[in-house]
């Protein structure tokens, strides 16, 4: 009965394998993989015992039913975020003023005294103190307090487990734009700082949606641009209406610009997902982790270290050379004019077309590292090039008066109109991200091409928007 194992020749084996591959059809790989997964799941179910904590589970569901309900979901969300913003703005005022007093009002004269004490030449102390030090100190005092409040609050909400529910609630809107619900979170983060927002896109694990979130984060009006918006809105938009409406209208203008940013980020997401990013792999997954009491101290520690300080460090690294450049273009002269004067003369016609002016464009070029120093640079250049007597601190020394009236006078003397104000607000929203953000985008995407796209897309849009606003405005006015 026993049969000798018969040697089978290789060709027969190959032919059989071939026939079988043909006969089992296309679904084999998938079926096999699915079987392996379900087998593993069965083994795990047999081996692992779980103690069900249903009470805890029911509490979670009760919270979920409220925070994701049709009626309460959005009001709760708005209330919480309004609270976070209010705490950030009101809480940051004091520390910002204190830091500014320390670094600028006290530190700057001290450093100058020290420099003249050791007999440093004017150009060296100007370059180092009025250029490098001033820009760095400015960025730190404006940027640090709001970030040190905003990020921990945001992280607390995250730690509690609420933020994934926000992504869940808003996913329908983002889905229509071809994006991921979690983009709502990175956008929120972008209101604090775009660089931090770009880092936060790591939570989106689908390549296409992550790239969309990175490229559109810039449309969330960041911490460095809020002060510009508020300043320009109060002195130009507020001044254009009766005094009793001034506060309301200028606040509405700022909120309007921020909302326009949200709208644009949806529009650009939609466009990107239907054109250049169409072929990228897109998968959706959103886990809703159980709620848990936030670990307050750990959260504050990690958010200050991981987010605030890293972002701040990058900003400082970029702000210092910007300060140097700003000082140099104002002080290095060829013939009888400074480099800044040449640049402004060259940029002026172009700026005029956009309803801006050469000084504003130059300020945006040299202040790429940080949006915080755009307005101080504009003020310095306006005072310098307009030869306004009694205003400003000197060539290359940025300044900003606490008195709105003074600022208004300087800008009026520089030829600003209501149109200039409106277009500065628009351009401040719609232009290339700061270099800190661009560097972060490069680090996150590893691609020079996408980094360039992140700069060129909003910059082009900014030119188009301000150009058309200017022409229509002048036609109607």
């Amino acid at each position, binding site marked *: 009965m026993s049969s000798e194992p018969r040697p089978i020749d290789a060709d027969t084996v*190959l032919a059989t394998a*071939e026939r079988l*591959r*043909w006969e089992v*059809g*296309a*679904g084999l*790989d*998938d079926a096999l*993989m*699915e*079987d392996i*997964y*379900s087998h593993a*799941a*069965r083994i795990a179910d047999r081996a692992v015992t*779980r103690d069900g904590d249903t009470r805890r589970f029911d509490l979670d*569901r009760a919270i*979920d*039913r409220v925070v*994701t*309900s*049709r009626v309460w*979901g*959005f009001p709760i969300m708005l209330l919480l975020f309004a609270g976070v913003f209010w705490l950030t703005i009101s809480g940051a005022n004091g520390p910002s003023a204190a830091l500014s007093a320390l670094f600028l009002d006290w530190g700057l004269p001290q450093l100058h005294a020290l420099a003249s004490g050791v007999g440093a030449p004017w150009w060296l102390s100007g370059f180092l103190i009025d250029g490098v030090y001033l820009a760095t100190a400015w960025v730190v005092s404006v940027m640090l307090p709001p970030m040190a409040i905003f990020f921990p609050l945001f992280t607390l909400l995250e730690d509690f487990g609420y933020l994934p529910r926000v992504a*869940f*609630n808003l*996913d*329908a*809107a983002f*889905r229509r734009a071809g994006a991921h*619900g979690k983009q709502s979170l990175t956008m929120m983060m972008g209101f604090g700082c775009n660089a931090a927002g770009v880092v936060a896109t790591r939570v989106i694990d689908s390549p*296409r949606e992550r790239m969309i979130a990175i490229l559109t984060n810039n449309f969330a009006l960041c911490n460095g641009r809020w002060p510009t918006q508020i300043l320009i809105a109060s002195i130009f938009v507020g001044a254009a209406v009766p005094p009793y409406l001034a506060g309301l209208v200028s606040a509405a203008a700022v909120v309007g610009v921020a909302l326009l940013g949200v709208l644009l980020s949806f529009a650009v997401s939609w466009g990107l997902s239907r*054109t250049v990013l*169409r*072929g*990228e*792999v*897109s*998968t*959706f*997954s*959103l*886990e*809703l*982790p*159980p709620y848990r009491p936030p670990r307050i101290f750990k959260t504050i520690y990690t958010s200050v270290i991981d987010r605030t300080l890293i972002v701040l460090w990058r900003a400082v690294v970029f702000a210092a050379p910007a300060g140097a450049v700003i000082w140099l273009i104002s002080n290095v002269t060829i013939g009888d004019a400074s480099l800044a004067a040449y640049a402004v003369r060259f940029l002026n016609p172009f700026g*005029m*077309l956009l309803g801006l002016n050469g000084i504003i464009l130059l300020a945006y070029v040299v202040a790429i590292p940080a949006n915080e120093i755009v307005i101080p640079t504009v003020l310095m250049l306006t005072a310098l090039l307009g030869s306004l007597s009694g205003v400003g601190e000197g060539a290359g020394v940025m300044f900003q008066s606490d008195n709105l009236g003074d600022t208004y006078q300087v800008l009026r003397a520089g030829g600003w109109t209501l149109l200039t104000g409106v277009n500065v607000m628009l351009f401040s929203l719609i232009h290339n991200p700061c270099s800190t953000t661009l560097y972060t985008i490069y680090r996150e995407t590893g691609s020079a091409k996408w980094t360039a796209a992140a700069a060129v897309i909003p910059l082009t849009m900014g030119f*188009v928007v301000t*150009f*058309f606003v*200017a*022409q*229509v405005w*002048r*036609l109607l006015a």
Partner: protein
Amino acid sequence: MNYSPLLALTLGVVFLAAVAAVFWPRRGLLARSRRQRRLTDRILGEDALKFLAQREAAERPATIQSIAGSLGVDLNRAALVVAGLIERNLLSRTGDQLTLSEAGKAAGLHLIRAHRLWEAYLSQKTGYEPAEWHHRADIREHDLSVESLEDLSRDLGYPVFDPDGDPIPGALATDRVKPRGVGLAGIASGQWVRVSHVEDEPPSVYAALRDAGIHAGLNMQVETASDGAFRVRVNGTTVDLGPLEVGNVTVERLDVEDDRGATIALSEVPVGTPVVVERLGEACRGAERRRLLDLGLVRGTVVVPEFRSPGGDPVAYRVRESLVALRETQARNVRVMAQETQEAV
């Protein structure tokens, strides 16, 4: 020239319109001229070889007229293309009969292989919609060398079929070009079949079949097959098919009834009802399929829809102690059964 806002505005609009006219995706001048330039003699010749190889596999002789029709060029151009191929000894002509030489056949099979492998690549590794696979592969097939196809095939795990069920020549020692199975039109009422191939041309018919939920690998039952009407039962819903659609589907008969038809889509399960996962739909591939498997959506897993988002989509599901949100388009691809009918595992 003096500045005037009206002039600037007009120039601005004209400039934007010009930029749009040049760069507009697919309809702009740039895209059009690129498409035009693509129709070189080399590409037309290769397309002709591919067409002839397909015709020979189907044992349907090809003429210059049918080549012109397939390539979308006039007879003159087609004749020139054919003359070029004959000159290069890729093709011979006796009377009206065009026959590929060995070299011509190899070139044709290489193109078919490139086309189908690229479709497999698009379906597994990119996010392009099924409707885009075919025309993208039509462009890409001309740029792929024999070596790069080897690499591609290895990266994809040596697939034997493309996503629509067409065999990939070169995957097996014998070159097969025709799909397995028989036409759906010849199947009698009540018969269970497995879809082995869905033709992806013309696009409108392909889109109609996709919308009806019919794709390669699907099991379905023919409900009514008479001259006037063709009705199939797909995953628990009844679908009417037109004659063009029926003609573009190839199937294999199944001996047994496939009770997998009793499953419903997870997206249709009401909130609070526990169900058991049966399998993932065949239309869900690549990264998306792995993602769902990773989440634990495998045969035998109990899933409960817990609550909906304010807009109704996505929905949060409880899967193995964790809460996961899925969009409607994903949940549609998870086939589940009511918990009672599941036999004990």
